[in-house]
């Protein structure tokens, strides 16, 4: 019996949207105020959805403590109160929230073994959110 479990986390980070392949004018036209050379920041809400069979003994898809420990060590401690542009994931890649979703998904997908990573959802502001499911269709 497959079930889905979503856990919500928070982190705060700064970024600057700037593409080295574009001229200053193109960067300004594409990214607007997000191209401010000094960067700006957000309180990001991160939702991690895992999927798997409900264990007959524990009644769990996976132990939340294991998920929390992995996310804390591999995502939050690396991203919280950091400038995303300085991280290795964003060398040569613009730290849009689209790319942030993909980067977080890949870290979890490669490293977290107790359950399958179904989807990553990131809220950049209360009006914007982004979802990535490893290229699969996002379930309603």
């Amino acid at each position, binding site marked *: 019996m497959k079930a889905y479990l979503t856990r919500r986390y928070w982190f705060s980070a700064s970024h600057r949207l700037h593409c080295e392949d574009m001229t200053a004018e193109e960067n300004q036209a*594409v990214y*607007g105020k997000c191209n401010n050379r000094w960067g700006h920041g957000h309180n990001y809400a991160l939702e991690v959805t895992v999927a798997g069979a409900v264990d007959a003994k524990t009644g769990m898809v996976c132990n939340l403590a294991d998920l929390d420990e992995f996310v804390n060590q591999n995502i939050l401690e690396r991203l919280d109160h950091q400038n995303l542009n300085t991280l290795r994931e964003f060398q040569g890649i613009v*730290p849009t929230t689209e790319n942030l979703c*993909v980067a977080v998904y890949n870290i979890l997908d490669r490293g977290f073994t107790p359950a399958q990573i179904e989807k990553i959802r990131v809220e950049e502001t209360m009006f*914007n*959110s982004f979802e990535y499911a490893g290229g*699969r269709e996002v379930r*309603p």
Partner: protein
Amino acid sequence: MVYLTRKAEFSAAHYYHNPEFTAEENRRIFGKCNNPHGHGHNYTLEVTVKGEVDQRSGFVLDLKQLKELKNREVIDVLDHRFLNQEIAEFKTLIPTTENLAISIWQRLESKLSVARLHRVRLYETPDLFVDYFGEA
């Protein structure tokens, strides 16, 4: 494939009435929503588009353009309107949240070029919402 959701709010009035029903049927089926003077809601709209991330910009599409499109095609048209009286399709169609979500989908889908519309989610109140994914 990345999915991007943008949220917005608008306020509008409506009432539910089907001229093919008797007055009693209208009252029984639609309850207090049948009041012909209308009533209103603060609607919350979530528009989700999907597409590949552009290699250079890192965007699925420019959020500013999505916001402008949504404002022009939906919010500016519906906000602070009496849907039954002022919006063409609702002169004949009952402006339920279901029909309103479908109408919003139709207003947006053909205007999107870079990314594809995936879902329209419309909250009538914080406890009630409708999802429409088109007729795939």
